[in-house]
């Protein structure tokens, strides 16, 4: 493992940043610095044909140079947009950096964007170039080519299945690099010149908001925004340079604004999975130092761990229970700021060595120094579970327009909060709403310059989130302001707050909670976790056929009711869930029920499940549904089911 002396490292960085004639204020400049100062250090790892291949910063810079000059040869002008779709791969990073060096603006989209969605993004951004990973993406663009007249060239990097496609519009990435190399031979100064041209206020990327409300908006992200997070978080998290980072977050936004700048700026060693299907195994092999999962993934992971333990032999179950108890004891001591007795320390050390570290190792968390969870906030019980396991999970808070705003660090135990703001970020609360002023803020919306200023109030950005700052300066975020709901009894609640706590259950994959001023209590639609509940049913010898069948089994319903009761205990008396329905299917992004980042689309869900909602408040004991199901390839099918309404 290559870790470097931290203080020495930091001094070296500081002197490097100050001494160089121009300030390193853009990602291309960071890459050039890495090439000069850390050229021989490993920058990236990618598993190809079963073997981890490594790239040094020098090699990476070489690829970036070729791609940058290749694009210039193709006629890329400063400010031109390039749409990129692909899984996390070294090539995706090189292309993005190459485009940035050339003065272009990369836009990454989700791999599973439908052709219609892709068309919207391409035309909205007016992209001239399209870079796709493989045949799937190239086919997508060929399908919509007629409607995207601005696209001049389509470039791909994985040629599987593309051997017999006609040249002309499409081109291999190696071909692009070849013409880039020719350009480089002719004009060796060009790359340096291009990098000098980039400025901190230039646009680094455009990201599209996930569109929980309406059409996705393009947000213009300047370089000072993308470099703000690595530089402000550096002293807080205290992660040494040369740490292992695993890139798996979808490039569509999180990775584009984080990994792509964090990786080179620290610098870190960035690893990539062989295929999306091998991710879990590859993470286990690398055992990265930092993990950034979405809340959903942490929830899934917790569920998996607990389910696996339940499946294990009795003595494994017993030893895990004893060990995690020691973990919780240590956590409690940390929370109450008390010292542990020697005996306790030894017991914890044993538990950690013999059991907890083994469990962590199975999920690639053997060496983690930092885990964060962003996006919608996480249930404190979930964070406590991971902390007890020895995983330093921290809540972080950010917004697409602002970047990262605040975060807990590894030693803080305020899980109910999202931590203190990063240095330089100011927060104030105005009528329950969180207002933020940050040096790393987005410029404006794409093709809508006034859009962002409408969200500003006296120089403060209105997040639209409700929350409060406590006396110690920790920020607590409840929910979107417009999502806070009052019941007829007067109690206020946040659906998201209740839903995240429901999702902490091993058996519940998704849930949506209803209630408003005219209703006296809450109701919920619960979508069970087919894998987990299926396994549970098998272990209890409960036969089932399909999702629909399983979801309505009396035994399944009774365990769900048990989980709902447990969540109710956490809620105020007047705002508890009285009725729920176990849904016959999972919520699905292909049916527009979730965003691609797996957030609930409430408006769609409210409309779609209106029948169930009405039935729950009308006091009926069952409701029949006929649902149209859209499969991932666009075909449609019908499902009929009778759903029981359960009172708790």
């Amino acid at each position, binding site marked *: 493992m290559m870790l470097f002396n931290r203080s020495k490292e930091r001094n070296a960085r500081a002197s490097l940043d100050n001494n160089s004639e121009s300030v390193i204020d853009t990602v291309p400049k960071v890459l050039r610095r890495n090439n000069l100062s850390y050229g021989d250090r490993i920058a990236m790892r990618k598993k190809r*044909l*079963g*073997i981890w291949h490594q790239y040094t910063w020098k090699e990476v810079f070489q690829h970036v140079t070729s791609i940058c000059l290749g694009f210039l040869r193709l006629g890329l002008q400063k400010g031109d947009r390039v749409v990129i779709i692909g899984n996390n791969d070294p090539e995706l990073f090189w292309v993005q950096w190459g485009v940035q060096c050339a003065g272009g603006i990369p836009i990454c989209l989700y791999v599973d964007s439908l052709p219609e969605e892709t068309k919207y993004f391409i035309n909205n951004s007016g992209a001239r170039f399209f870079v796709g990973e493989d045949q799937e993406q190239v086919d997508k663009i060929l399908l919509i080519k007629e409607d995207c007249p601005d696209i001049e060239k389509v470039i791909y990097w994985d040629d*599987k*299945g593309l*051997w017999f496609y006609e040249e002309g519009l499409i081109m291999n990435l190696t071909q692009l690099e070849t013409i880039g190399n020719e350009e480089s031979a002719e004009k060796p100064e060009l790359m340096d010149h291009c990098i000098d041209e980039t400025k901190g206020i230039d646009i680094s990327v455009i990201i599209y908001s996930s569109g929980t409300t309406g059409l996705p908006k393009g947000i213009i992200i300047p370089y000072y925004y993308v470099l703000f997070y690595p530089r402000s978080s550096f002293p807080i998290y205290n992660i040494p340079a040369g740490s292992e980072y695993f890139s798996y977050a979808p490039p569509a936004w999180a990775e584009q604004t984080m990994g792509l700048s964090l990786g080179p700026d620290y610098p870190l060693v960035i690893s990539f999975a062989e*295929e999306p*299907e*091998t991710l879990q*195994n590859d993470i286990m092999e690398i055992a990265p130092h930092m993990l950034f999962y979405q809340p959903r993934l942490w929830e899934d992971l917790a569920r998996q761990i607990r389910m696996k333990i339940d499946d294990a032999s009795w003595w494994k179950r017993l030893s895990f229970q004893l060990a995690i108890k020691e973990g919780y004891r240590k956590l409690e001591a940390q929370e109450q700021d008390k010292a542990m007795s020697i005996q306790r320390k030894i017991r914890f050390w044993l538990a950690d060595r013999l059991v907890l570290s083994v469990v962590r190792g199975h999920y690639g968390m053997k060496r983690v120094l930092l885990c964060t969870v962003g996006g919608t906030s996480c249930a404190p019980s979930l964070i406590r579970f991971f902390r007890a396991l020895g995983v330093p999970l921290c809540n972080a808070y950010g917004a697409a327009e602002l970047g990262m705003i605040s975060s807990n660090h590894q030693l803080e135990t305020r899980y109910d909060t999202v931590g203190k703001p990063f240095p330089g970020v100011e927060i104030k609360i105005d009528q329950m709403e969180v207002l933020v002023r940050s040096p790393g803020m987005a410029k404006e919306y794409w093709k809508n310059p006034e859009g962002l200023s409408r969200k500003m109030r006296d120089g403060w950005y209105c997040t639209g989130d409700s929350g409060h700052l406590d006396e110690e300066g920790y920020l607590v975020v409840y929910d979107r302001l417009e999502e806070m709901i009052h019941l007829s009894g007067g109690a206020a609640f946040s659906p998201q707050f209740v839903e995240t706590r429901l999702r902490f259950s091993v058996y519940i994959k998704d849930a949506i909670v209803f209630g408003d001023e005219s209703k006296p209590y809450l109701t919920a639609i619960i979508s069970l976790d087919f894998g987990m509940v299926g396994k549970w049913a098998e272990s209890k010898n409960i036969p089932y056929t399909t999702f629909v069948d399983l979801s309505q089994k009396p035994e399944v319903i009774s365990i769900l009711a048990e989980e709902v009761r447990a969540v109710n205990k956490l809620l105020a008396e007047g705002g508890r869930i009285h009725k729920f329905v176990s849904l016959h299917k999972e919520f699905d992004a292909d049916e527009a029920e979730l965003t691609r980042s797996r957030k609930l689309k409430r408006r769609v869900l409210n409309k779609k499940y209106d029948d169930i909602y009405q039935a729950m408040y009308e006091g009926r004991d069952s409701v029949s549904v006929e649902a149209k199901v859209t499969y991932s390839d666009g075909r449609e099918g019908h499902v009929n089911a009778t759903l029981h309404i359960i009172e708790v």
Partner: protein
Amino acid sequence: MQKLLRLKIENLHLRFGDLAPLAGVELEVYAGEILAIIGPNGAGKTALLNCINGFYKPWKGTIIFDGFEITCLSPYKIAQLGISRTFQNLALYSGATTLENILTGRHFRTDENFIMQMIWFGPARKEEIRQRHIVEGILDFLEIQHIRHIKVGGLSYGLRKRVELARALALEPTLLLVDEPMTGMNREEKEDMARYLIDINQLRRIPIIIIEHDMGLVMDITDRVVVLDFGKKIAEGTPEEIQSDQTVIHSYLGAAESQS
């Protein structure tokens, strides 16, 4: 342009006592084509494949592959000549991993020295690495890296079919026989399998003989179709010709319709 003849079967008869699964079949396979053999159950399709790769000894007739007569050769010799196949009801080592299963397909293509292999030294080690590299290429081609170290017995049916195809490819065949590669698969798996077969055919220039019941797929991916019924060839032609052939409709498609 005259296409290169790769496999020629003349007047092939197969008998088990009074039963005659094949009664005078004639068949040609040309370079680079995908040929489908269709026909009702018991028409002799699998028996024909079994004759080609030597599991059954025909009673009469000749099979000529690339100019050699292979009619009564042992299966392993035929495999050495470059004919590999997959089976209708899967013939994998279910206790071994995907990787190990595919490596068995490399048997004929491995330079071996028993003693060297045992002590895992020098050339033996280098050879093993070379073999692994080739197998990894196949894993990548068929997109089954994620099950590399998983025992085949625990895999889904669709994946096991893919592993079997991978093993057949590991032999570096010059003629590939696939027996019902898509039974028991859902539509998505079928589409994947069809894409792999087309890729194998185009990229590696391997002719493929395929037995398949999904008519839609057969019509989509094959160049030529041969129809068998009661051990005899009753029709041959492009998919379009076969679809409009009255004898075929009567004996096969018609029968299938009246059955359902």
